């Protein structure tokens, strides 16, 4: 079939169109042939090295001489990560949360790596980065990056809260107080001045919230004199007057139906014990405590002195 092209004298495939248009069979360039051969060799090696074809007779497959499996590769990758984390994790184990916090390298490790742990265990209620979750019932779980703590904001307190869980309690007052009384109390609390109404002392609120209305940490009762409310949060879409109205409504609801009071309309505020739940290891609980502390609201052991001017300046 091959014949010489009449003018160029290069062999052709024998196909000729339009009288003199022919398929020349020039040899491809040398580098191209080398490349082709190398690619073919590569395929063979690849085919033999990796699992490549099923062997139906034995119901299995050719495993490849390299012994590669996806699981092994994944395990190797995980091993790499573990190796980096291992040395930090080993140090963490024997340390108290306060000691971890004092070590800047470990703190850095925890703040960088804690995101997943927090996201998996805490964010459902406290929101990503501890910004809180808002739903129909107001704020569900406390915001973690402010400086207001019902049960204390020192590292040991935070650790204890995660480890043992917390459950506050406020009874429903709907049968004890009149609507007008609840309204007066709610307005006083919303202004941050619970003692501006004599009802606060007279109706026994001080028993839990303290005579000055600043709350009692051991009970987890809220400080009613500051600018942070447990179940309400400012809505940026509303103006100041609307926010105030919303806040008063929220407080009225808390007073009327209580917290964890069993009343179906009451507030629910339950922090489970993560130790009892058994899902987290001790080290993980410590890491979470440091992670939460580092949101910015954590209080140091030698407080006040350093931060007093800051707070003073703000007033």
């Amino acid at each position: 079939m091959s014949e010489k092209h009449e003018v160029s004298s290069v062999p052709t495939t024998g196909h000729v169109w339009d009288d003199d248009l022919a398929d020349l069979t020039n040899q491809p360039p040398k580098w191209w042939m080398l490349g082709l051969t190398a690619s073919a060799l590569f395929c063979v090696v690849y085919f033999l090295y990796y699992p490549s074809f099923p062997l139906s007779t034995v119901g299995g497959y050719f495993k490849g001489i390299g012994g590669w499996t996806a699981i092994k590769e994944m395990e190797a990758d995980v091993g790499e990560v573990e190796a980096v984390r291992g040395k930090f994790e080993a140090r963490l184990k024997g340390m108290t949360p306060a000691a971890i916090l004092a070590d800047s390298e470990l703190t850095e490790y925890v703040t960088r790596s804690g995101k997943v742990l927090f996201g998996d265990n805490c964010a459902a209620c406290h929101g990503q980065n501890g910004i809180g979750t808002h739903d129909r019932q107001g704020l569900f779980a406390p915001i973690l990056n402010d400086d207001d703590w019902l049960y204390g904001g020192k590292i040991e307190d935070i650790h204890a809260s995660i480890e043992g869980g917390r459950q506050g309690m406020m009874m429903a007052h709907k049968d004890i107080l009149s609507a007008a009384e609840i309204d007066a109390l709610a307005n006083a609390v919303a202004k941050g001045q619970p003692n501006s109404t004599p009802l606060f002392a007279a109706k026994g609120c001080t028993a839990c919230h303290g005579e000055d209305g600043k709350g009692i940490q051991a009970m987890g009762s809220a400080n009613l004199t500051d600018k942070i409310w447990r179940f309400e949060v400012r809505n940026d879409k509303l103006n100041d007057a609307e926010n105030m109205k919303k806040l008063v409504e929220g407080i009225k609801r808390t007073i009327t139906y209580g917290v964890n009071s069993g009343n179906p309309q009451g507030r629910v505020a339950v922090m489970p014990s993560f130790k009892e739940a058994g899902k987290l290891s001790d080290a993980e609980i410590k890491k979470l405590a440091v992670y939460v502390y580092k949101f910015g609201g954590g209080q140091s052991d030698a407080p006040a002195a350093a931060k007093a001017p800051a707070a003073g300046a703000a007033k």
Partner: protein
Amino acid sequence: MEIERKEAGSVTGIYQELEHWNVNTGAKTIHAKRMPGFFRTIKNYTQALYLLFFLVPYLRWNGKQAILFDITNSQFHFFNLTVLPQDIWMLSLLLLLLAMVLFAVTSVASRVWCGYFCFQTAWTDWFTWIEDKIEGNPQARRKLDVAPWNVGKIWKKSIKHFIWMLISLLTGISFSTWFVDAYDYWNKLVHFQLPLVGWVTLATLFFGTYILAALLREQVCMWMCPYARIQGVMTDSQTILPAYDFRRGEPRGKLHRKAGEEGRAAQGDCIDCYQCVQVCPTGVDIRDGQQLGCITCGLCLDACDSIMDKVGKPHGLIRYTSLDELEGKPAKKMYRHPRTLVYIGIILIAFGGIVYGLTHLGSIALKVIPERQPLYVNLSDGSIQNKYDFKVLNKTDHDFHVTVTAEGGVKDQVIIGAEKPLLTHHGRSTSFTIFVRAPGENIKREVTPIVFRIQSVDDPLIAAEYKTKFNGPKR
């Protein structure tokens, strides 16, 4: 003229033209003759520049490798200078500059790069020199290629390939030592302790060099190199390149001793000795005109000049000249060659950018990332707190402490987290978390601009600023 007349009206004429174009696909090895001469000498010197490639990595400076593209630590060391990834934009300017130099040179003097500087040319030249030393001159080599295998042939061929491989290996090693500490590399190499990527690099360079320079040679230039393909559009009729003076040379003919004066006068100066083809490393016959295979190495000029000496004719039958000049057109002035001027303009801009970059490297860089979730936090006393992630890049060679201050922002704001000067580690980025707390009633806008400034405690000249914002509630 001849061809033009013949091809009028006939498609097959094109094939006829093709006929004497012998397409070099590498089926036959080209054994070029080596001849001394002016361009040969230049080429030897320019190619010797590649000694730097082999030797510079061993240069030390202040106990460190003087020039090192430190991949593992993402740093580039050049004597006292350290360039970190943040300043790598200068590299793109450098590449632009080099590319433009290549274009400019090509438009003025064609493939100077190919003929004198390209590593493909250089390595191939050395490899064929070795071949010449071991197997003899081109005739001897051609004979040896077709000779039956015997002890002598096997001996010669294996010596040759062994030396080729040795050079290839050295090439791979030298390449690697630009990226990791050279002495450390050798130490690991002789103990077979290189990391996998080290072995892969070495193997790639070894096989690459061996296959491209020893086996494929001019095939790389003919079929693989992109520059060879695009250089045709960078040259024009004013570009000088090695060209055969057809007016002077044609009609060519063998030198006949017996031919009388008239006979010689009717002939051109080309005596058809094929020396120019014999010496050409890419197997080109320059007398056919400018063509893809010609790397403008000037070796055929040397060959032709030596022949002209012998026959008593002036040099320059093949010479560096422009097509315009060959055809007797007047040479245009430089300013009428806008293309080159544009190239030079871009070169100057790129060069200026690099100089600016190198003189403004700075010793410290600051980047501040405000927290986005949440944008701000309400505190119990009614103040608003913002959280910032500081990334401080210390480009000096020692650790130092910095202070953090802020300008702008909100009245009576307090910076928390930088009460004491903070330590920055040299050669890498250090991060800190910084809070700014401001009284709620002083915040007049949702977004207030704030400028952070960090400053070394030892040297107030080492400082950096970053402009960002302080977020507050909607007003």
